[in-house]
């Protein structure tokens, strides 16, 4: 969770707690206020951690559609952008493409040569099996090396201090020590890689596909089939491929025309990244 989210949650929750605290002197109405406050508490938590589930539920219940631009519509299910042109419906949907983080791989200082060498061939085989339009996108921006290195060294220093403190305690926890050692190794590996000339990069990956149909349902069904097929095909790359729903559909739609600056970009994907 980033700092901004923490500030927003803390301020909103504080307000809810203040309402709860002020409700005690109103008898039966006080109980009603308490129930409403608890419901608001749950609603804010859902909005913070699962808005990609909550937002489509709200839009679907009320049948709300969004028009992000002329001739484009985001359906009430919040999972596709529809363009209607010359009697044809074009439905566009998105999948996340997050690389799984393996702690053991992150500890290794050297690249996995066979795996990297296999990547171009895997990509070509995947492309050969796709018979419909799709787009694989990677938005990347390199970080300030010195700043990133300083952050890593601070983090390593803190972990080393905690490690030595745990070692000196009368009853050290072996599991905790092992975990800390592993975290130190991961950070050290990152520092070493920077030393070897590798640049730290912030990135977001996603897959986009467009389907056509003579009716809205036809286009949406075809899109679902295409995205399912892409999920199967891109599994070979060890990626977490999940269909994107909710407000991020609008963000990804607008990325086709405009790439926002770094801070905007990464704050958009703080939860469903």
């Amino acid at each position: 969770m980033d700092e901004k989210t923490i500030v927003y949650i803390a301020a909103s929750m504080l307000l809810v707690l203040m309402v709860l605290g002020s409700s005690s002197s109103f008898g039966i109405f006080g109980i009603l206020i308490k129930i409403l406050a608890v419901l608001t508490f749950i609603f804010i938590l859902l909005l913070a951690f699962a808005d990609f589930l909550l937002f489509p539920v709200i839009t679907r219940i009320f049948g709300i559609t969004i028009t992000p631009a002329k001739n484009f519509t985001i359906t009430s299910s919040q999972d596709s952008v529809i363009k209607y042109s010359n009697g044809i419906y074009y439905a566009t949907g998105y999948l996340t493409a997050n690389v799984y983080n393996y702690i053991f791989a992150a500890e290794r200082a050297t690249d996995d040569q066979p795996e990297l060498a296999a990547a171009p061939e895997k990509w070509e085989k995947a492309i050969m099996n796709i018979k419909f339009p799709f787009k694989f996108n990677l938005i990347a921006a390199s970080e300030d090396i010195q700043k990133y290195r300083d952050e890593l060294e601070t983090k390593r220093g803190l972990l080393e201090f905690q490690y030595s403190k745990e070692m000196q305690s009368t009853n050290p926890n072996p599991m905790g020590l092992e975990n800390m050692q592993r975290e130190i190794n991961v950070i050290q590996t990152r520092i070493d890689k920077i030393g070897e000339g590798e640049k730290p990069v912030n990135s977001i990956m996603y897959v986009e596909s467009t389907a056509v149909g003579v009716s809205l349902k036809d286009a949406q069904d075809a899109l679902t089939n295409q995205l399912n097929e892409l999920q199967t095909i891109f599994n070979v790359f060890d990626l977490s491929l999940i269909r994107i729903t909710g407000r991020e559909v609008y963000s990804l739609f607008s990325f086709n025309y405009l790439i926002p600056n770094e801070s905007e970009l990464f704050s958009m994907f703080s939860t469903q990244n």
Partner: protein
Amino acid sequence: MNSQSQILIFAISIGVGIVCVILMGFIPSGLAPLAVVFAVLALLSSIVAFATKDYLFLFEPFTKMKHMNIVIEESDPFYMAQSGNAIVVRRGNDIFATAFIKIPIYSTATEMDDDQKYNFAILFARLVSISKTPMRLSSQLHAINKDEYLARINAKLNESEGRYNVLQGDKNADPKALDRVKGEVTMWRNMLDNVSRSNSQQLGVYASVSAAGNSEDEAINMVSVRAEEIAAGISTTLGVSANVMSGNEILVFTDPDKMIPPATISEIMKYKNTQAA
């Protein structure tokens, strides 16, 4: 709406909520229903305050919602710059330009040995870190508009059929020449059948980058400079001649109609039906 508006709306919402809670404190127990009203207002303020974090873009359009449709933008998502080398996007008073860089990669993994494949993967990984400002690298598989190509094959077929008919009508025609023209007619006919039957696709690799400006010209100039820098970086890293795209080339990567040209829809549908069967 920018981050200043975001902070302002967040602060106002929290402020309204706090005022409501304070007013609740002054309400005597006999007027408890009024306390519920203030409590609801305070709780709504807390939700609005939190929603400003991610849903600010919907606030203004939401207030103008008609028939359960929230209109964020009434105009086209972009328009082409006069120079044709970028697209321009307007968001309220802000103006942005986005440029697209074509990355022509002609090598294939089937022609590489393991070392070359490894080196290619490393080079591609380096490509990701060439820009400090966010850059989008995309690989797009799209349908080829074969209308023009099919028309050319058709013209060739008609021309060879004409020659065949002339030769057939000539009693002194060389039988070998007649056979040759007959073979040509068959070739063009087969080609026409094959090309129109199959689903032809093209893979395009490109990078895109955006820049903001106080005016359209400023945004376009800034993005052009940035795009040229990135194109130079890509060319050096991958050893290809990356160049900034212009005009219709850009539309293939931004417009669904161009990604799937209407002429190819029947083929795609045919494929879809085959898959469904």
